[in-house]
């Protein structure tokens, strides 16, 4: 049967590659691929910031400890988490249809999953090699080999945990034992590591530099019971971090032992996973263009944010729908979490420095939300164009649909950025704005102005991204499904660059209006309250957004549903 699986994998990969190469005849894919490959090439050759930071951390030993700790947490979480129904192996609907009713043994299906998982592991290891690699093609095989070993061992272990947990459930091992035995083992391991560190804390705390601290921590955890508990995680971490042939060779025997143990553990499993996997494949298949993550999590119904009146503007109905789909509660929780963390950090100390730190953190987060939020929150036409045939049946103008679609991310991101900016201004204690020595009242004025301007920029940014989706749907990921591949990454980079240029052009008239207002007011009144030009800027930009939404609506009205269906 192994031959059949190799045939399936090899043919699929070959045909996939052919399809991708054939797609390069289309300019958008050719441009996207060129941009993506150029980016990867530059990353590989330039020894960029990620690589430099990685090298520094690696040199002082922090990286190995951090990686081992992360692996420990991942493994611990995989063992102790308890979900109704248990985890399952993921198969596609075609795999279920062809392989499950076929004369294929369960273990052979597991072999097949192991084989298929190698495709993604090899790609992941290659991409990681480019990002954190040695900056030369000579060292690349070592980095790739170490990463491949680490990713394969980790993936195998996770698969083993999945099968083991389901096996325990299916064989009727008591719920108490299933739930608490792994937890007890994890707690025991954590206690051993914690006690070891606590005993040696005086020496650890005496370290003058992070390098000394890391060295001491490595020494402390390399002996006694802690060394036994942490051995698998340190081994995998060392393999992943190996940068020379000697380093890789040193860790290779223990890494191969670990790999072999996990292989034997997984291939000897005889867990009946077929039914749960078939069920998951159905859910993933149905949710493919909409919410695959939701299918994995088995998301239940979400609460409506407000009662939708039977009559009223269509924009409100779309806003209401998208709020439900966006999980407005989790957004509010996230918002409150950010605010509370800032408040606790600031209020807990009472000192100026932590307050200022919290303020800077909030302001930085707000900047990230303003500039990256619209590319990340896609609960608008970038998702709903997948359902254009449905939207077309609604008795609503295209403009109303565009306005309604943009409203949800605009409101959510504006609320988030406003809260962060307010916290930034409140906690900064003058640190952020200290260079201009403003009073508290001025800071409030600045915060309000920043909130108004940020909300307008966010809305304009969302209009630009939705415009790209409506006018150039082939260039945008429509629906929630992640589009893999270097050409899609390159396309996304080009779209983001284009969006920034269009956004700059859109902001120019609003900025000009604000500057004129400042000059005129300064000429006649002598002083200029910051809120006035900010409000003028926001007003002009929002008017532009409304006009753009109207124009986009007309394009949407004229868009052929077949064009979207062809894209799918």
């Amino acid at each position, binding site marked *: 049967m192994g031959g*059949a699986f190799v045939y399936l994998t090899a043919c699929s990969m070959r*045909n996939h590659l052919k399809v991708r190469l054939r797609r390069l005849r289309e300019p958008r894919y050719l441009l996207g691929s060129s941009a993506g490959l150029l980016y990867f090439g530059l990353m590989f050759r330039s020894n960029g910031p990620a690589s430099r930071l990685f090298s520094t951390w690696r040199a002082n030993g922090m990286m190995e400890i951090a990686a081992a700790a992360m692996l420990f947490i991942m493994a611990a979480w995989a063992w102790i988490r308890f979900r109704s129904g248990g985890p399952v192996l993921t198969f596609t609907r075609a795999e279920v249809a062809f392989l499950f*009713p076929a*004369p294929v043994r369960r273990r052979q299906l597991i072999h097949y999953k192991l084989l298929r998982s190698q495709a993604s592991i090899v790609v992941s290891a290659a991409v990681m090699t480019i990002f954190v690699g040695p900056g030369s093609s000579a060292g690349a095989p070592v980095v790739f080999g170490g990463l491949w070993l680490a990713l394969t061992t980790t993936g195998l272990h996770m698969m083993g945990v999945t099968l083991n947990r389901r096996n325990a459930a299916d064989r009727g091992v008591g719920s108490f034992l299933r739930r608490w035995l792994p937890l007890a083992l994890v707690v025991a391991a954590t206690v051993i590591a914690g006690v070891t560190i606590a005993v040696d804390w005086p020496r650890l705390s005496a370290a003058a530099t992070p390098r000394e601290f890391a060295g001491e921590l490595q020494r402390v955890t390399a002996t006694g019971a802690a060394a036994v508990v942490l051995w698998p995680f340190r081994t995998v971490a060392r393999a992943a971090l190996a940068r020379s042939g000697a380093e890789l060779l040193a860790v290779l025997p223990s890494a191969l032992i670990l790999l072999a143990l996990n292989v034997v553990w997984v291939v000897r499993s005889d867990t009946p996973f077929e039914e749960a996997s078939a069920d998951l494949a159905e859910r993933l298949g149905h949710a493919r263009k909409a919410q695959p993550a939701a299918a994995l999590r088995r998301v239940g119904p979400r609460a409506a944010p407000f009662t939708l009146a039977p009559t009223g503007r269509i924009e409100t109905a779309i806003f209401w729908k998208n709020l439900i789909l966006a999980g407005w509660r989790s957004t509010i929780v996230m918002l409150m979490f950010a605010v509370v963390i800032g408040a606790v950090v600031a209020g807990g100390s009472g000192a100026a420095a932590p307050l200022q730190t919290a303020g800077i953190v909030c302001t930085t987060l707000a900047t990230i939300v303003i500039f990256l939020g619209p590319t990340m929150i896609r609960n608008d036409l970038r998702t709903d164009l997948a359902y254009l045939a449905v939207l077309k049946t609604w008795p609503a103008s295209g403009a109303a649909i565009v306005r309604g679609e943009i409203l949800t991310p605009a409101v959510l991101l504006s609320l988030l950025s406003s809260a962060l900016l307010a916290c930034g201004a409140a906690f900064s204690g003058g640190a952020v704005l200290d260079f201009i020595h403003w009073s508290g009242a001025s800071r409030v004025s600045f915060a309000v102005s920043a909130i108004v301007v940020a909300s307008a920029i966010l809305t304009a940014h969302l209009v630009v991204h939705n415009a790209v989706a409506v006018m150039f749907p082939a260039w945008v990921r429509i629906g929630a499904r992640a589009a893999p591949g270097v050409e899609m990454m390159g396309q996304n980079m080009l779209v983001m660059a284009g969006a920034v240029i269009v956004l700059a052009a859109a902001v120019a008239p609003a900025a000009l209006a604000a500057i004129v207002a400042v000059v005129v007011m300064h000429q006649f009144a002598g002083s200029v309250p910051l809120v006035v030009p900010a409000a003028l800027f926001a007003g002009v930009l929002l008017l532009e957004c409304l006009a753009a939404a109207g124009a986009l609506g007309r394009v949407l009205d004229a868009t052929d549903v077949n064009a979207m269906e062809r894209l799918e």
Partner: protein
Amino acid sequence: MTATPTIAVTALTKIYGTTTAVNGLSFNVAPGEIVGLIGANGAGKTSTLRCIAGIHAPNGGSVTIGGHDIVRAPVEAKRALAFIPDEPQLFEYLTVMEHLRLTGRIYQVAAVESRARALIDALQLSDKTDALPAELSRGMKQKVTIACALLHDPSALLFDEPLTGLDPLGIRQMKATIVSRAADGAAVVLSSHLLHLVEEVCTRILILHRGVGIADGTLAQLTAQARAAGAGSTLEQIFLDATAREHH
């Protein structure tokens, strides 16, 4: 004398959480028989087929294919089986011919090339052998699924809503395929909401209601029973009357 059944379902029970989808269902399918499973949505038709196909594990009872228990000897049982789902599920990056070669390898079919060519010609897919699923219409995908299902000459065939999404020509070919395979000695089970299909091609009809078999027999037998009970004589009337009686 009754022929030895190719498919034997005995006291089959399938439970999902707190819902009993199939409840103690028993029936046999002899070689050459075409049994039609009919029932409302949620009656347990697809669950029954999936348990017979070995995709779902039964909570109770047994299923044997050619004398092999689908749970205890799944590989032996599945060698004689083919399951055609309601929606064709093909590998995204395998061509039509590669699907057949893969199937041949899985089922250990000798002379796979000649058998595959014959099926491809019969199903009018000759000009699509190198096409990927994305380049095929739904009907063509269904034909590929059928070709793969028939490649190993199964003695037990399971069809789940076989006419879904097919055009009139595809419907005619599908009906002909089902009837001809049964004529060649295969035991066929098909589930469908289309009563006219069941009436036309099935030699026996099994009406399911809430996971329980409430009527089982040839159309003539069911009609006679219905007449005796004062019900109508068409399959639609028989089905509605039987499910309504159970409902009350």
